[in-house]
């Protein structure tokens, strides 16, 4: 195991975070704060409580997930896309590092960044609304699993993309809609029965539901299904990454 390489890649990626602090940390915090002002304070005051939780508090887990998903994907995809774009990837490919070490470095850094961001958003949210975390360990588990899964997913997008448009396409056209429709701002039980069924095909529903359960003990689907679906998606991403390195897809000609 080339620990030095994992460390080098990880620190390099984290250094990029600190260099682009405004974009990496500050802007998601600001946009999340805006959500809280609009949905939490302004609109939320006129909404009835869902499952016994005030609307402002109810959307906290969903909003954290929203940032977690989009940031994990954009961090990880950009992290591997950029070296491909400028050509510095030659060094990674010619180095004595295994696929696991490359992924551990890039995905580890992207996930760390998202987790830090998620926690910052939670703290920011606390300034706007009052909430308790019923199961802090489960909360952290979901936070870490989701950050890892979607950082892996972002890594895959970064390798697949061969231009900047594609890099933006998947997050914009697929992930953002799935997150908004995944119950960030509502309980899926509020949907008409047909759409409740459709929504069960949206993997984000399980993430948000499980995450929300760790806060308030209420969920749209059961905890075990949430955990199960998260692990399924994680394994799917791992399998894809494994295939990418095995075949050299978009990395080696």
């Amino acid at each position, binding site marked *: 195991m*080339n620990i*030095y*390489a994992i*460390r*080098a*890649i990880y*620190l*390099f990626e984290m*250094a*990029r975070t600190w*260099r682009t602090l405004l974009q990496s940390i500050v802007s998601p915090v600001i946009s999340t704060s805006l959500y809280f002002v609009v949905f939490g304070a302004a609109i939320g005051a006129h909404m009835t409580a869902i499952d016994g939780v005030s609307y402002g508090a109810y959307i906290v887990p969903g909003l954290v997930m929203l940032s977690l998903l989009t940031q994990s994907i954009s961090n990880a995809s950009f992290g591997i896309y950029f070296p491909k774009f*400028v*050509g*510095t990837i*030659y*060094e*990674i*490919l*010619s*180095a*004595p*590092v*295994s696929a696991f070490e490359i992924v551990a470095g890039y995905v580890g850094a992207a996930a760390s960044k998202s987790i830090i961001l998620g926690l910052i958003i939670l703290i920011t949210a606390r300034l706007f609304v009052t909430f308790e975390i019923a199961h802090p360990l489960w909360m952290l588990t979901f936070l870490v699993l989701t950050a890892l899964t979607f950082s892996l997913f972002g890594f895959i997008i970064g390798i697949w993309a061969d231009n900047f448009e594609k890099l933006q396409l998947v997050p914009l056209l697929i992930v953002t809609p799935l997150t908004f429709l995944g119950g960030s701002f509502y309980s899926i039980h509020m949907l008409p029965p047909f759409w409740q069924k459709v929504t069960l095909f949206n993997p984000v529903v399980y993430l948000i539901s499980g995450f929300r359960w760790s806060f308030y003990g209420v969920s749209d689907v059961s905890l075990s299904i949430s955990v199960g679906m998260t692990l399924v998606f994680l394994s799917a991403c791992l399998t894809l990454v494994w295939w990418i390195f095995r075949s*050299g897809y978009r990395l*080696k*000609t």
Partner: protein
Amino acid sequence: MPPIISVKQLSKTYASGFHALKHIDLDIHQGEIFALLGPNGAGKTTLISIICGIVNPSEGTVLADGHDVVRDYRSARSKIGLVPQELTTDAFETVWNTVSFSRGLFGKSANPAHVEKVLKELSLWNKKDSRLMTLSGGMKRRVMIAKALSHEPQILFLDEPTAGVDVELRRDMWAMVRALRDTGVTIILTTHYIDEAEEMADRIGVINKGELILVENKAELMNKLGRKQLALQLQNPLQGIPAALSDYPLELSADGQQLVYTFDAQSEHTGIDALLRRLGEAGIDFKDLKTSQSSLEDIFVDLVRERA
């Protein structure tokens, strides 16, 4: 001593169907400077990229210091440093960080003393805290060399190291390459500047259209294939080549002062003695004579043209 790099029956066909390399066999000896010479698109970079792990081979094997570059890539690659042709560097990193990053990537523990030594040797020490985007092209080239040397490789690949480099840096680079060789590092450089191969290399391989046409010691190559010319400074200018000498491949300079005879240095009978006798018989006197050997460039152009 076994070769430090051993390439056997290596072929590469790209997805487009382009045969970049065709059954290459090549051994590189430890501690030598090997120049891979060839026109653009000949397969030089593909060959290097396969050895370094950037491109997958279609067929054949490569051993680096006895390790298969595909199956035992970890051991093989940790011995190799690569300076690619393109100037690809991060923009926002500092020189110090990017060189230290390379060392870590190649599995070496941090060693500020070594990084300092490399940076000083490449005249980069006073730039160590500069961001890469603020550096000139020549400085970036030095940074890329520093990155390749950061993990103390035994084998160094320089792909077109002096393309677009000014005279001073080129001279520095040649000096550095020699100094590295003196420490036992094996150096493989590609170039299409023939004078570079001539100046630097111990052995030369000529590659064209994916085939290794020839591998030879530089001196032997030039001996073996070199044509020589005999130039005679005449006592009295000639109007034309006399009929008595018409069966010799002679050229007369425009002012009629110099007669040039081209011959094959390899051949048993160069024909010089007969020519000189014939000149005496024809009453043509000369005041000076010199022979010159054709440059590697001439040899190379001949070779590539022959195969074209």
